[in-house]
């Protein structure tokens, strides 16, 4: 049997580009990237094996993403369709993003057609169920969510090569969901946990977000933002990248007001782009932090 040039196959598959892009555009998320790398490797090796006539079942790629708010679950899921399509696992590059409302009906007999319709829409691509634990409501035994779960399970099992299902939600609630639906846990091959971000990663995320919107920190503003993150992370309801985005949105508001108030002075394009420390330090987070400190 002829030798197989894995290196050449790796290059022509374009996997390298997919992984590099993932690295460049998503900060942190080590375990997530590692798992995507593993999946990519498996799919490539699988293709090679098929080429030489070694048959195997296509791998199951249903996934569950768990993690705290703002850790990038939805962002990665949106990417997943693109990644799996480029790896040649799914036929079309489309993601159908749904929540409980889209799957569960309002009256008897409404749920099954509704769930099936969504599943058919997602075929060939990725079905992303955000906050999947809402599907199961143990406190109401007549809840139609269970019916939807049964159809989902059946399709996940029988039409594995037609669609990939990704569930996402907060870790503790997803765990409770899986405990009460053991069939779900075993049908999902990849349970990926999204870790919280480190302060340095959050800063990098902030700079990426600003760059995308053609803003940037002045050096003192950058220092102020580091202090802001320190203070904000101590406070309740910190939701990682989402909190960063909200903080930046508010800083943009304050910058606009500052420029507006100084409208009799000449304005440079530089000034339109730059966030100054004043915009960060005006945040309520600092007064709360100072008040809490003895």
């Amino acid at each position: 049997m002829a030798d197989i040039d894995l290196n050449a196959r790796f290059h022509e598959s374009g996997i390298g580009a997919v992984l590099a892009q993932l690295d460049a555009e998503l900060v942190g998320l080590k375990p997530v990237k590692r798992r995507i790398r593993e999946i990519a490797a498996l799919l490539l090796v699988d293709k090679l094996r098929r080429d030489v006539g070694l048959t195997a079942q296509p791998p199951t790629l249903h996934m569950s993403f768990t993690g705290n708010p703002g850790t990038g679950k939805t962002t990665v899921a949106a990417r997943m369709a693109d990644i799996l399509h480029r790896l040649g696992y799914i036929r079309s590059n489309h993601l159908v993003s749904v929540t409980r409302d889209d799957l569960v009906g309002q009256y008897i007999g409404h749920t099954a057609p509704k769930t099936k319709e969504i599943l058919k829409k997602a075929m060939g691509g990725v079905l992303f169920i955000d906050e999947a634990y809402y599907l199961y409501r143990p406190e109401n035994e007549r809840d139609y969510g269970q019916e939807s779960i049964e159809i989902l399970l059946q399709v996940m099992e029988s039409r594995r090569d037609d669609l990939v299902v990704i569930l996402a939600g907060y870790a503790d609630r997803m765990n409770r969901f899986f405990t009460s639906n053991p069939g779900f846990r075993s049908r999902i091959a990849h349970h990926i946990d999204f870790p919280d971000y480190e302060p340095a990663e959050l800063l990098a995320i902030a700079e990426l977000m600003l760059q995308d919107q053609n803003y940037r920190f002045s050096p003192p503003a950058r220092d102020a933002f580091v202090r802001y993150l320190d203070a904000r992370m101590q406070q309740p309801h910190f939701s990682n990248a989402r909190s960063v985005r909200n903080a930046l949105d508010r800083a943009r508001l304050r910058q606009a007001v500052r420029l507006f108030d100084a409208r009799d002075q000449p304005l440079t394009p530089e000034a339109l782009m730059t966030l100054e420390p004043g915009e960060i330090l005006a945040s309520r987070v600092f007064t709360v932090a100072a008040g809490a400190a003895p």
Partner: protein
Amino acid sequence: MRITQGTFSFLPDLTDDQITRQIAYCQRNGWAVNIEFTDDPHPRNTYWEMWGQPMFDFKDPAAVLYELKECRKVHKDRSYIRVSAFDATAGWESVRLSFIADRPLEEPGFALQRQEGDGRSIRYTTRAYATDKPAGDRY
């Protein structure tokens, strides 16, 4: 008598694999795929019953094929089933492709009827043997 109509009417019936690829072609062009059935084979019977709704937002042939199989569970060997693709683009707004996907096991064909008119003129018409029986019992 084997009824033919629509695209590929000169070819043998398409296999599921070929149907899948035709559907993929339609979806690539952004056409809505429909499944229709009838048990009245008359060529002027253009409005067939629809199976479900037009599938505007399905991106993958697997979903349409699923519906086709559901339709076959009810109508296989008892009706004609056809797949058609509707182009909603302004200016077209019509069916761009349609083919018969399933047909009854036996197709008895048509009788030619003559009607004597004034003088020696004769009017011709065809009548499907199948329509002698009531709808639902034809095949």
